[in-house]
C-alpha cells in the first residue's frame, strides 16, 4: 500500500502510523456531554469501502494526513494535510472554542 504524502510523494505504508478514524468529532473541550465524549473516544466506523482515516507520516515529514482509503482494496483515493486549509481553525473560532 502506497500513500502519496503531499510533501514527500508516494511512500510505502511502513513509513506511516495509523492514527485512527478521521470521522470522529472531538466535543468542545469544556463539554460535559459524556455520550459525545464516549462516541469520540471509543466509537469507530468500520465501513466496507471508502473510509476517512488519519495517518501520520511518522517515518517522514511527521505531518498528519487525511486519507480516504478503501478498506476492501486498500486503494487510496485522496490524501490531504489534516491541518487542511485551516477551515477547522476558523470553525473553532466561530464556535468560540478555546
Amino acid at each position: 500500500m502506497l500513500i502519496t504524502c503531499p510533501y514527500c510523494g508516494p511512500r510505502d505504508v511502513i513509513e506511516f502510523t495509523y492514527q485512527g478514524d478521521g470521522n470522529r468529532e472531538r466535543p468542545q473541550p469544556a463539554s460535559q456531554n459524556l455520550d459525545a465524549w464516549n462516541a469520540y473516544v471509543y466509537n469507530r466506523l468500520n465501513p466496507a469501502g471508502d473510509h476517512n482515516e488519519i495517518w501520520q507520516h511518522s517515518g517522514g515529514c511527521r505531518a498528519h494526513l487525511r486519507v480516504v482509503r478503501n478498506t476492501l482494496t486498500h486503494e487510496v483515493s485522496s490524501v490531504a494535510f489534516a491541518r487542511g486549509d485551516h477551515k477547522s481553525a476558523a470553525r473553532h473560532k466561530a464556535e468560540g472554542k478555546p
Partner: protein
Amino acid sequence: MSPRRTDAGGRIDRLRTIRFTFDGAPYIGHAGDTLASALLANGVTLFGRSFKYHRPRGVLTSGVEEPNALVTVLRGEVREPNIAATMVEIYDGLTAVSQNRFPSLSWDLSAANQLGGKLLSAGFYYKTFMGPAIGPLKGTRFWMFCEHFIRRAAGLGRAGIAADTARYERMNAFCDVLVVGSGPAGLMAARAAADQGARVILSELEPHFGGSANWSGETIDGMPAADWAARAAGQLEGYDNVRLLPRTTVWGYYDGNTLAALERVTDHKERPGKGEPRHRYWTIRAKSVVLATGSFERPLVFPGNDRPGVMLAHAAERYANEYGVLPGNRIALFTNNDSAYRCALALKKAGAAIVAIVDVRPELSSEIRELADEVEAKNLSAHAVVATEGGKALAGIKVQRFDMVNGALAGDRRSIQADCLLMSGGWSPTIHLASQDGAKAEWNAARQAFLPPNATQRWIGAGAFTGSFSTAEAIAEGRAAGLSAAGGTGTPAALPVVEAAPGDPDPAPVFEIKADGKSFVDFQHDVTAEDVRLAHREGFISVEHLKRYTTLGMATDQGKSSNIPGHAIMAEALGKPIPEVGTTRFRPPFSAVSIGSLAAERFGDLRPERLTPMHDWHVANGATMYSAGLWYRPMIYGHAGETIEQAYVREAKATRESAGIVDVSTLGKIAVQGPDAAEFLDRVYTNMFSTLAVGKARYGLMLREDGLAFDDGTTWRLGEQDFLMTTTTANAGKVMQHLEYFLDVIWPELKVHVTSVTDQWAGAAIGGPKARAILAACVTGTAVDNAALPFMGIVHGKISGVSVMICRLSFSGEMAFEVYSGAGYGTHVWEALIEAGKPFGLVTYGLEALGTMRIEKGHVTGAEIDGRTTARDLHLDWMLSKKKPFIGSAMMDREGLIAPGRLELVGLISLYNQPLNGGAHIVEALDEANPHDSIGHITACCYSPALGKYIALALVKDGKARRGTRAHISDPLRNRFGPVEIVSNHFFDPDGSRMHG
C-alpha cells in the same frame, strides 16, 4: 546411456555428466536435468509414499504443480523438505531423499494403512476417534492413543533442526511493466513493452525462458519453438530497460500493484558464488502487470490413477522433448480432449511405442483421427480406463466402453499391457495471481475451466492464462498485452508464424470414471472421489466446507491439479452446475516460499542502540549497562566483589550522605515553541503552565483522552514562548506523537511548533547534601545559592568553559540539580562535575540506586502509570486543575474511574526481612495451598538503605484506606510468601525538607 534416455534430442547437455544420490543410491544425469527427469532417465518409477495410505507414488507432472514426487534435499546438516523433484535442478553432489516412508521407500510398513481405508476417510480427524462410551479408552482417550501412530504414519517431509546457514536477501524493484511467465505470450509481451521504452521485468519460475515453447515441438517463424524462445530471450538480454529474472516465482499479488517474488539464486549450484544469497525475496511495484502464467493440465479421476507410471500427458511430452527422457516404452493415453494427441506423437518420435489412445469421446475430428493414425496406436474412442495394474510401476490398464452422456460403463473389460499411462483431463488456466487480487473467476462451459476475472488492478492477461490455449493466440495476445501495458498503440511488424498440431481447445465435460477402487482427486492429501461424495452425504456441501472436511486442495500444492476435478465431483453430487458450486479464492503464496527469504536480513537483534553522550565514560568506569527500551543505561557502578544489591545500596546511601550523580540524558525532551505554546501546555497538562514564570520549571501530568494517566515530567519555561518539556524515557516517542496529533488534527489554529530535542541535550542529575557545594565549585557565570537558584529555578552558566543550563529539581528527594549541556559536550561537563565532586565524596550511581531513591520517595514511573491507573489512584489528584479543561478532563471522572475498590498506590514494608518481588500478588490472609483473592500487586521493590528494610510500591485495592494494616505477599511462582505492612507511598522525608533545603 541410462535405460530411459533417448539417444538424441532435448535441451540437455549429454556431454556434461552430473553425479547425485537419491535415497543413498548414486545416479548420473546431465546438465539441464531436473531431479525428476534424471531419475526417470535412470528407470526410477517410485518417488514417494502418499500422505495417508502410504501408496507408492511416481511423478505426475513436470513442473511446479507436482503433488507426488516430493523430496527432501540435504546440504550438510541442513534439510529442506517437501521440494518437488520436478523443480530441483541437479548439480554434482546433490543429495536427495524420499519422504513419508518407513523403513524404506520400496518396503513401507505403513502401506497397510490402505487396508484400513475406511478408518482414514474424509473427516477422520473429526469423528473416528470419539472412542467407546466406556472403558479405559473411552471418549477422547482413544484418540490420544491412536494419535501417536497416525501422526507418525501420515505426513510429509521432516523439517530439520540444524540452523540454516544460507544467506537470504531482500530486494525492492520498480518497473513500468512486470511480465509474469515467459512462454510465447510472456516473451512477446516483454518485447513489445520494451520496444515502447518501458522499464520491463520478465520473471520465469523455471530455469529457462520460453515456457511451453521449450517442449511443444512446434515451429515458430520457421525454427523449432525452443530455438525461437531462446533467441527472443537472448534479444531481451540486450535491452538496457529489461531485467530478466529466471528461477523466480511471483507468488503474491497485493494492493497497489505490489507483487512478491522468490528468486532461487543458488539452489541449482553445488555452492553459491561469492556474495550470492540462496534466495532473494523481491518486492516489485509495477505500473502494469502482464499475467502470462499459462495453464495446468488436469488429471482424470479413475481407479488406480495414482499408480507410478500414470502421468499427465504434457508432462511426458516435456520429458521427451526437453529432457530426452521416455517415461515408458509402451505408452497408453487416456484423454477427454485433443491436446493429448500431440503428446502421443512426440513420444512416438522419441522412440516409444504408443499402444493405445483411450478417448472418452465417441467422435473425433478427422484431423485428430489422422494424428492417431500417425502414431499407429489402437484408437479406443468412447472408452475409459477403469483400472490400473502393477505395484511400484505400472504393468497394464483395463479399459471398458464408456458413455460420456450418462457416465455408464458397458461391455467387457479389456487389458492392455503398458508401462506408462498418460492422462489429460483438460486445462485450468493458472489464474492464482488474478484471483489473489480479489475478483471472482468465471466458469467457461466450453473450456470447462475457470477463466480469469476482470482485472481489479492494472493487469492484462495473455495466452493460456486467458483460456487461449494455442501458441498463435498466445503470441498475438502477448504482443497486444505488452503494447497496452506500456501505453503503446502501434502494431509494427507481422506476428511470428506458428506451425502447430491441430486440435479443438475444448475438452469433453468428463472428470471422473466411476468404477470400483480408489480414484484420487487430491494426490498429495490422498483425497478420493468417494471422500468428496462422503462429505456431500454428511452435509459439507459448500466448497469451503468441502476443503476443510476432506482437506482437498490444502496440501503444499494447494490443489493446483485437484481443485477443478474436486468441484466437478461435488457439483455432480449436488446436481448443480459447476459454477454454482463455486471456486475458492486463491491466497498467497502461489507456491511454497522459504521462511529464510521472508526473514532475509531481518533477524537477530534488529534494535538500533541508543547511547547517551556519556556512554563510553560509563563503560570505561565500571558501569554494568542495562538496556531500557532502545537505550543503554548504567545499572550500577559495581566494585570488585559487590553484589548488585550491595552496589546500589552503597550508591544510594552515599548520595543521601554526600552527593551522587546520574546520567539522565535519556529523558525525552521536546521543545514546545510559539505564541500559543503556554495555551497548548495548559490543554495537554492537567495543571497550569501559562502561569509559570520564565526561568522556572514545573512538574506536569498528562492524561489520555479516556481520562487515564499517560505521562509525567517537568517542563521548563525558557522564554515567554519557549518551553522545554521533559518526558519519561519510555514515553518520549508516544508523547511527541500525541502532541503532534493535537496540533495537526484537533487544534490547527494554535501557533505552536514541537521539536524532539532528546538527542541534542546531555543531562546529568546531581543530588545530595553536598550537591550545591559541588556546583558552586565548578559553575561560573551564575550563582547557585538559594536566592539565585531556588527550588524549580533555572540558571544559565558555564562549567569548564561550556554553556550549561541548570534546573534545581529533584527525583531522588535530595537537594538536586539537573545540568544540561549540548550533547557533544556531555562527557566534558560530566567529567568536570566528577572532578569538582571528588573533595565532596561524589559517587556515580545507576538505574538501581535511582529506582531505590524514587521508591523511597514514592514517585511514580511507567510501572505505576500502566495505562490502567488514574491520577487519583496515584494520589496525583492535587494536580488536576479545576480552572480549565484539559485532555482527559471530561472522561476522568466517569463512574468506574472514581468508584471504590480501585487499585491505589501504596507503600509496602516487608515484615519478614526478605526481598519483595515485582509482580507478586498481595492477599489479605495467607493460605499457600489455597490462594485467596488478590487485592493487588507489587510494581517496584528494593532494599531501602534509608529505612534499613525491604520495601515496595504496590497497587492495592482501596489502598489508601488500608494504610497501617497488614497483608501478605503470595508469590507461588517464586515460592515467596510473607507478611507486609501497608503504608503511604512516601516512605522517606514525606514533607520534602531535604530537597527544599
